């Protein structure tokens, strides 16, 4: 897991991740980008809670390990000032077969979205606005209730 302000190369990360496992038949990855909704985004500022971020992500990853048969899992999440098109974060999972890798990646994304302590602010020509959490994101978590 990496929490960083520096840019990273998701392709290089994925190649390294994919070549590191034994008995791996499936790798699933997700990359999140800064979206410029109506061509007016100057920057996106991502704030986080440093003392909590890594342990919150670790707890989410730990739960994924308990639920699915994984060979490996990777989470990279940036904070600081980003621009449209920049890579915000990536998740990768690997397993023997694809079902576990897909489900675990989906789970990790749902939980990182609403349980990891990051807050996004969009700066446009009109001003600054904190991105509001969506009810749909919270609802998505209930899919994973056991």
């Amino acid at each position, binding site marked *: 897991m990496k929490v960083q302000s520096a840019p990273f190369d998701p392709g290089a990360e994925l190649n390294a991740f994919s070549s590191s496992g034994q008995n791996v038949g499936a790798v699933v990855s997700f990359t999140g980008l800064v979206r410029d909704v109506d061509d007016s985004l100057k920057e996106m500022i991502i704030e986080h*809670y440093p003392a909590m971020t890594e342990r919150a992500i670790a707890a989410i990853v730990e739960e994924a390990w308990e639920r699915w048969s994984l060979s490996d899992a990777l989470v990279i999440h940036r904070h600081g000032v980003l621009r449209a098109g920049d890579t915000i974060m990536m998740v990768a999972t690997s397993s023997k077969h694809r079902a576990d890798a897909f489900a675990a990646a989906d789970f990790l994304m749902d939980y990182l*979205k*609403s349980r*990891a*302590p*990051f807050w996004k602010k969009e700066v446009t020509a009109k001003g600054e606005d904190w991105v509001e959490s969506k009810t749909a994101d919270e609802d998505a978590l209930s899919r994973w209730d056991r």
Partner: protein
Amino acid sequence: MVDVLYFAWVRERIGLPKEQVETSAATVMELVAELKAREERYAVAFSDISALRVAVDQELTEFDAPIGEAREIAFFPPMTGG
């Protein structure tokens, strides 16, 4: 003494990221009531706690959670990671 941290718009409304608070509050809710009584900016920031989340010693919890021996309490809006 407990460290109280604020993030995102909660930090902006209160006007600082962190402060030390002398409190005898037993629960997070009691601490919120003490903060709200301080000044208007706190009252505004905490006017609707359903719009807020709280972490005690870096663990997400509920507003009725006891403070106990906690050293750090953080208030923030729902998270928007990913």
